[in-house]
């Protein structure tokens, strides 16, 4: 992690869509009276989604106002969690796991693919479709190496399959989530190794 700052260029304003406002109300209602501030994480998350994958300063203020909390407190939360992007991201935001198991299984190769196809971490590809960041363990070590793109995991990657995946996303083709090598979830590679016969 590095020092996280608000983006240098900020939109004029931010307002939740009606749909998101209704959704926010259900989130806030989960907490007792006077404890609305507890809903800050879901609200910031929704604001990030609506804002195209990143949180702008007006969005942070908007959420703080909704929860009746000081702007500073909301900014603290937004800068604390790495799940909040403070600068714009691509349409497909790749979070590449670089922690030990993935690294041992070839995460460095995936990084090279990203550098080639997208650019340096944080850069957005010229067509605005892709950007990437290295993140810490996403908890799918058994399917290492893996990346998270927007809401989905893509696992058991190799440089080739990953490159193809990025190309498919870039061109709007359908992609399969989960393991990219035909494996079923986190079952053994190449099919079951035990309990194969009749009992």
């Amino acid at each position, binding site marked *: *992690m590095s*020092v996280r700052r*608000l983006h240098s260029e900020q939109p004029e304003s931010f307002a939740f869509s009606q749909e998101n406002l209704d959704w926010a109300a259900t989130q806030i209602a989960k907490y007792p009276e006077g404890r609305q501030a507890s809903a800050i994480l879901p609200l910031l998350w929704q604001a990030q989604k609506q804002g195209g994958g990143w949180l702008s300063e007006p969005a942070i203020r908007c959420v703080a106002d909704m929860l009746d909390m000081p702007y*500073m407190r909301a900014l*603290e939360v937004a800068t604390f969690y790495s799940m909040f992007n403070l600068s714009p991201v691509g349409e497909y935001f790749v979070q590449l796991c670089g922690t030990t198991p993935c690294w041992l299984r070839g995460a460095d190769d995936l990084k090279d693919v990203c550098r080639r196809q997208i650019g340096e971490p944080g850069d957005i590809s010229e067509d605005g479709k892709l950007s990437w960041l290295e993140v810490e363990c996403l908890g799918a070590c058994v399917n290492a190496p893996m990346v998270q793109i927007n809401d989905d995991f893509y696992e058991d990657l190799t440089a080739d399959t990953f490159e193809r995946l990025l190309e498919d996303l870039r061109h709007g083709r359908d992609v399969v989530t989960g393991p990219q090598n035909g494996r079923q979830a986190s079952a053994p590679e190449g099919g079951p190794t035990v309990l194969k016969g009749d009992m």
Partner: protein
Amino acid sequence: MSERVNVTVDGIAVEVEPGTTILQACEAAGVEIPRFCYHERLSVAGNCRMCLVEVEKAPKPVASCAMPVAPDMVVNTQSESVKSAREGVMEFLLINHPLDCPICDQGGECDLQDQALGYGVDSSRFEDNKRAVEEKEMGPLVKTVMTRCIHCTRCVRFATEVAGVPEIGAIGRGEDMEITTYLEASLESEMSGNVIDLCPVGALTSKPYAFTARPWELRKTETIDAMDAVGSNIRVDVRGREVMRILPRDHDAVNEEWLSDKSRFVWDGLNTQRLDKPYLRVEGKLQATDWQRAFDAIATRLEAGAGQVAALAGDLVCTEGQFALKSLMEKLGSPHLDCRQDGAKLSGPRANYLFNTGIAGIEDADALLLIGTNPRLEAAVLNARIRKAWLAGHFPIAAIGQPSDLTYDAEFIGAGPQTLKELVDGKHGFAEVLAKAERPMLILGQGALAREDGAGIFAQALALAEKTGMISDGWNGFNVLHTAAGRVGGMDVGFLPGEDGRDRDGIIEGCKSGDISTVILYGADEIDRAELGDAFVIYVGSHGDRGAHGADVILPAAAYTEKQAIYVNTEGRAQMTERAAFPPGDAREDWKIFRALSDRLGVTLEFDTVDTLRTAMFEHAPQLARLDELVPAGSPETPVAALPDLDEAGFAPVITDYYFTNPVARASATMAACAEARRTRAKAVGGTGTDG
């Protein structure tokens, strides 16, 4: 109260209240625990880990600031493991702390420096690069060197809890955590300077004081502040004859250990715009002269005897000076004198013009009504006390006046006297809240008193106080909040119209009509010169401000840091200032000026030392002799004179610009910078800044 708990600290047995922390128990035993984040007036954070101690049967050292005592706990603060734990903490703290003490303003009074002496090791095992943090902008008062920050979060907690402006925070996390204000704006607080004292290292230091002096070369004088009527206890640090800075002193009953920004940063105003010579207006222009000629001019004027002489006292003047001038006026046979230069309709016994509850008493109250006052601007430190009581809970607050952010929830129930009347008649819901409360209080501000119908409003407020049980045995919830440090002292010595004497409005009227031909303005700078007509104006004061500009004779006097004098704060507490520096040039202490003038006018005053003056003054006002005591003032009384009809106009704010309320503040470049910063900020956020 539950049973007290026995604890042993380093073999010393102490008995403490349950719920006390180990750190407090250690202090009770006289054992000092090093700490950075812990501060007794802030919430416990427990993040610096410097206060580790060993507790018997505990597997690891515990953070004593956050751990409550248990019965029969045995604490050891001197063991080898404690020492090595603290050394470990210190080594971590110093990993990212720059070794720039020689160029750091905190040097010589730095907690980290002091404690590194006790627990630091002489070398570092850290071989990587130290962390560097970008500078943060925090306005014209607080200078930041954030690389020095050790993340104790005292400033964050102060801003959130005490000042009530949650604008400082810690962004990022781990090694990247940084303390900053939201979008690096200056703190919208009248108490922001306190973060400088709280910062245990040199991360937040005083911008106006930056690189000007070292603590060991300053002469420190413990004295009293005069920027507002709170009477904050201060320490004035002087090098040579120049005031270098002002710091607060502890006084639990007055300012705890806080100080408002105006009181703290006004010192450059004490060194500029000073009157250091008598001046005389010759052919329309003020010319420097000497005392003799200035006195001659006054004598010539008075001997001509065309009309009467009157005197008005200002906001910053001391009790001795006002008593001397009052005595002089008596000798001259003039009853026209007034210390209420704002025209506040205050009179009667002491209880009528004091903050009877006492500042510390606010914490005992359980309901509050503010009438025509904005304590945040008028007495910032007192406002912090109201906030403290409000934070403690069960403290409903309502206010009549112009709505503004007071740093706590106050319900603005009306704009003017009409609402007060409704409360008296029991027509408003808050009257019931007051009546139900056990110890309700009201604060009557100068915004309600300094108007034509002030006496009527006073009577209504008193009626409300009596009706809602604010005044009873052992509780007096009727309070007047003053804005001028000299006012209560002036009222105490009777610097008020004598028999058939004119008050402020009468004096102005008299000047216009020509009945009054000579006016002595004793530090009274808020009087419009144009209103005094053709009267001959003698200005006695310390600064070349509004009063001096229109004067015909100027007699230079001492400022509040340059004399030993009694000031009485709004609660009636008489406190003695000490001389931190000498008045500049030919300027003299106030009472000496009046004594010398009386001699020249042939009506010599009896006292020729400050002691004989005080003896005479104490005869008149014995409560002044009891320094730092709250002398009970009894119950307030309704004025006997006919009461004016209430005007419908709402209460106007007393202070429109917090940073420019008096001649010293107006002479201060720092205050001007603050006012400018606040204007810029108000513009940036769309004009929602408070009235300051």
